[in-house]
């Protein structure tokens, strides 16, 4: 059985293009905990998520996921525990149905292919018309893209969710539906990046990041 999905960032310093984005930053989440990461623009909130995914390698400090250090070797298996939806998700080219199927061509997800049967229910839960499945991703609105990206993330059955401003383009009704859905996932560990606490009202913790480059 997998170890509990804890997240730990310890004394991490990140520099990009000569600028310090994070300095001695630490954060720890217990398994199943939900945290809201907030703070002004440019304070490094998205960088924290990118560190957890191994997209940014810290200059100093360490990152642990489920008790395992994130390294160039372990990152490939640890990513299989994470569902990530970025700001303004770029779904790529093609129709929505193909985009939802794409991750199941990866070796890590082939066994989960049956989860595609959940697409209609998830579309209903998020207020997405099923006719969107045959629409070009490029023709979707910002809010529709965000919800399709969330559906895609949920289909992968991960136990850690890293969600970056995922309700920013949603109308209040759609936002409520998304929030209610994630509230019901009590077992999952979630780190939610947003400017305001309203976007993630069921957070166990609110982590305020200092303004500007830390």
């Amino acid at each position: 059985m997998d170890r509990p999905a804890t997240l730990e960032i310890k004394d991490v310093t990140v520099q990009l293009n000569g600028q310090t984005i994070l300095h001695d930053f630490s954060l720890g989440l217990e398994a199943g905990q939900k945290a809201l990461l907030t703070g002004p623009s440019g304070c490094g909130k998205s960088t924290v998520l990118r560190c957890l995914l191994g997209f940014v390698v810290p200059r100093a400090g360490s990152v642990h996921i489920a008790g395992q250090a994130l390294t160039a070797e372990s990152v490939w298996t640890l990513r299989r525990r994470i569902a990530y939806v970025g700001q303004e998700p770029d779904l790529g080219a093609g129709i929505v149905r193909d985009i939802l199927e794409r991750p199941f061509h990866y070796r890590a997800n082939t066994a989960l292919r049956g989860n595609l049967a959940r697409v209609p229910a998830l579309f209903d839960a998020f207020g997405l018309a099923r006719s969107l499945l045959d629409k070009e991703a490029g023709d979707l609105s910002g809010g529709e893209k965000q919800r399709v990206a969330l559906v895609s993330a949920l289909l992968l059955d991960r136990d850690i969710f890293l969600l970056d401003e995922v309700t920013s383009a949603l109308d209040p009704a759609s936002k409520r539906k998304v929030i209610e859905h994630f509230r019901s996932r009590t077992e999952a560990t979630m780190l939610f990046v947003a400017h305001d606490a309203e976007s993630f009202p069921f957070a166990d913790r609110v982590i305020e990041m200092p303004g500007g480059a830390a």
Partner: protein
Amino acid sequence: MNQVVEIGAGHLAAAYLLLAFPLAIMLWYRIPMIGETVVSVVRMTLQLIFVGLYLQVVFRLNNLWLTAAWLLVMVTVADVSIVRSCSLKLSRIALPLFGALLAGTAVPLLLFVGLILRRDNLLDAQYAIPIGGMILGNCLRADIVGVRTFYESIRTGEKTFLQSLAQGALLHEAMRPYAQKACRAALAPTVASMTTIGLVSLPGMMTGVILGGASPAIAIKYQIAIMISIFSGTAITLAMGLWLTSKTSFTPHGPIDRSIFRAS
């Protein structure tokens, strides 16, 4: 068949008169390319004079090592040219791409000379240099299009690429759609030229063999063999080029290493 007609220096000079047409068009439309054109014509002339003299010596000696060295020089020049054209850093890409170009040229060349022409000496200068040059020239064109398309589309579509990694893709799985796009872009011209060859234009090798005094029946056999060799060489060099350069172009965690791009 007739032997090849000798072109005297005076007669060759007449060929330069044809330059009056493009230069006049540039003047008429005020296209600022006259200086560039003159420099490239002078360069072409000097390079071909040098190569002509050098190849006479290489052909006369027909030494295996000398031919191999000349082919390596050709591959090196092509390698540098591709990396520069793709706005990538020489220090990061040149070595893996050199391996890909060498394989893409050597495999079809050796099969052509050994299997099709049945020469005992696989590096017989008279065959290895012109045939190797034709294959390499096409590998160069394919790599410029393919390698550039591959890295540029990952750079511009980085969000989608990273999303694939976040969804659990291994590096080769995340690279696949970009490699497909690059291969399509690079191989399409060769596929298109095979479709229309002989109908739209008489290809270079066939023309050369005919001008050399052989019959069109022999010329088409050479042409078919070279077209297939070129296609196979471009596919090998492209596939190997993307694979080998990816070893030095991505961070160990998966994202593209932006330091491979040359500042524009």
